[in-house]
């Protein structure tokens, strides 16, 4: 049974409790303190040390009846794709699909090559540069030896990839992930993905009936590009790009056959030319 998140952005109030709970539970360090001047969004984006990000979108438009404004909030997270670009790209096998169907990075196996970073069509994964010596990185089944290995891997250079684990450690103990537990409005719902999908579709029907015709699901069904469904999917009130989500994401590995084929054609061509040049009298 795959578990995941249904993030219903119509219920999000932008309190950032999910961000805080995630940082606390996973002992992720601060990203520094800065004001972007962009609404209430000072987190900016998901990163190796930020695994939930509440996006604020202010839509203000002049209409004949005056000014119409709308404030969209959405808690973004790793999508835990059915076919995950990062998982396919990882050359060490550090990125695995665990027993909960989540895409999980084993920090002690990761070698920091950064190939997953460029292979995520959603721009989620990033390298953790340094944990600054004080913070530790708690993950992986709460097994001490494993934790020690993780910490050792990080202590030397930092430089391993980081992203949402879907609270692998909490799930093994039968607990709900920290963000979903902390969400005061049930905007973040955790559970069996199949059940969540049904619930999400009912919710869209309800919203449409109430006149919220722009309500749409993102990733509950096949999202295209070879990625399949998302275990962490969203209910949005506007087009995905408004929330900084790709409208047409593509699984990077689907481009491999074309690449190897093109290289092979050129290789054979150059070999024939070379043979003609080198073996001619």
């Amino acid at each position, binding site marked *: 049974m795959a578990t995941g998140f249904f993030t219903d952005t119509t219920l999000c109030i932008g309190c950032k409790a999910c961000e805080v709970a995630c940082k606390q539970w996973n002992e992720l360090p601060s990203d520094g303190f800065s004001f972007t001047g962009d609404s209430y969004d000072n987190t900016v984006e998901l990163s190796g040390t930020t695994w939930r990000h509440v996006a604020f979108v202010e839509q203000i438009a002049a209409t004949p009846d005056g000014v119409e404004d709308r404030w969209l909030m959405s808690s973004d997270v790793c999508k835990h794709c059915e076919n995950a670009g990062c998982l396919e790209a990882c050359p060490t096998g550090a990125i695995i699909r665990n027993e909960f169907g989540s895409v999980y990075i084993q920090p002690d196996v990761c070698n920091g090559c950064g*190939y997953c970073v460029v292979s995520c069509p959603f721009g989620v994964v990033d390298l953790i540069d340094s944990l600054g010596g004080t913070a530790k990185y708690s993950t992986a089944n709460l097994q001490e030896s494993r934790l020690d290995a993780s910490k050792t891997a990080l202590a030397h250079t930092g430089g391993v990839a980081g992203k949402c684990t879907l609270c692998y450690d909490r799930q093994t103990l039968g607990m709900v992930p920290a963000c979903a537990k902390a969400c005061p409005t049930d905007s973040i719902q955790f559970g069996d993905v199949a059940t969540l999908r049904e619930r999400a579709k009912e919710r869209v029907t309800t919203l449409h009936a109430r006149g919220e015709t722009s309500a749409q699901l993102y990733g509950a069904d096949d999202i295209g590009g070879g990625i399949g469904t998302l275990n962490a999917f969203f209910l949005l009130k506007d087009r995905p790009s408004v929330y900084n989500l790709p409208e047409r994401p593509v699984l990077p590995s689907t481009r491999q056959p074309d690449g190897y084929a093109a290289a092979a054609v050129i290789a054979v061509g150059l070999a024939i030319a070379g043979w003609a*040049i080198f073996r001619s009298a």
Partner: protein
Amino acid sequence: MNDEKPLLKAPHWGANVTTYLFLGGIMGGLGLIQLLCDPRDESMRKLRRTTRIASFLLAAVNPPILISHLGRPERFLHMMRIVKLKSPMSVGVWGLVLYSGAAGANMVRELAQSGVLPSWMRHFAPHALTFAQAVLGAFTAGYTGVLLSATAVPLWAAGKRHIPAASISSGAASACALASLLSVIEGNHEACVKTERLEMVASAVEFAILMDFRRVSGDYGKPMFEGPRAEKFRTVTLIGGIAVPIALNLLGQILPLPKPVDAARTVVASVLTLLGGYVLRETFIESGKASAAVRQTAISQPT
């Protein structure tokens, strides 16, 4: 404000990865040259020996360059615990390891044949490894392109055919340039005539591929062809690294130049080609970083 937010993460790759890709391409090209050399011909036998030694040396320095990117030596071994066909990084590293083995064995045979090593060591490598090194070389050079094109970075993804094709032709041209350069140094001028001809073909193919990429890539290609890096790319790769060396090599084929002048011509043409090959890889990497920051091309990704 939302329009300025990046959607994708930029690659963390710098000069060491650029060098790794550049040398990977040369290694691949050298694999082809050592196969093409007819050992019955004295100058070709010398060229084969030179390219085999050079290819093994390059294969030997590439893992340390990769390690300088990873941070610690044992991190390289993390990639040796698994073979993953869907990961270009995984199959590429295995290709590199196998190539090193073939190149190393061929080098030992070469040195045994020329008396540097004991003569019984010539049995160290079966003749099939000559062909194997060429095939593995083609793979190594091609993979340096697929490594980029099989990602979400819009510029690289848009070049899913062009970047691997340009990588392998640029690798072949650079390998010919290196072979010419080394041949001039050891006084094997006859070999240069052939390596320079092949270099002209490879460079012309590379040029055509890059021009076609510019034509078809549209908005996805802008960070490479219109961005702040475009001028360096045009000057050092397209003109300095392709057009000028082709002209110089053509000159060498047509005009009966005096030997010292001809040697100087070869050196200049080869160095320019190698420089152009490096800047091609650098342009791929650096404009890939710029491309990842362009929100619009990340929203609608190349298929």
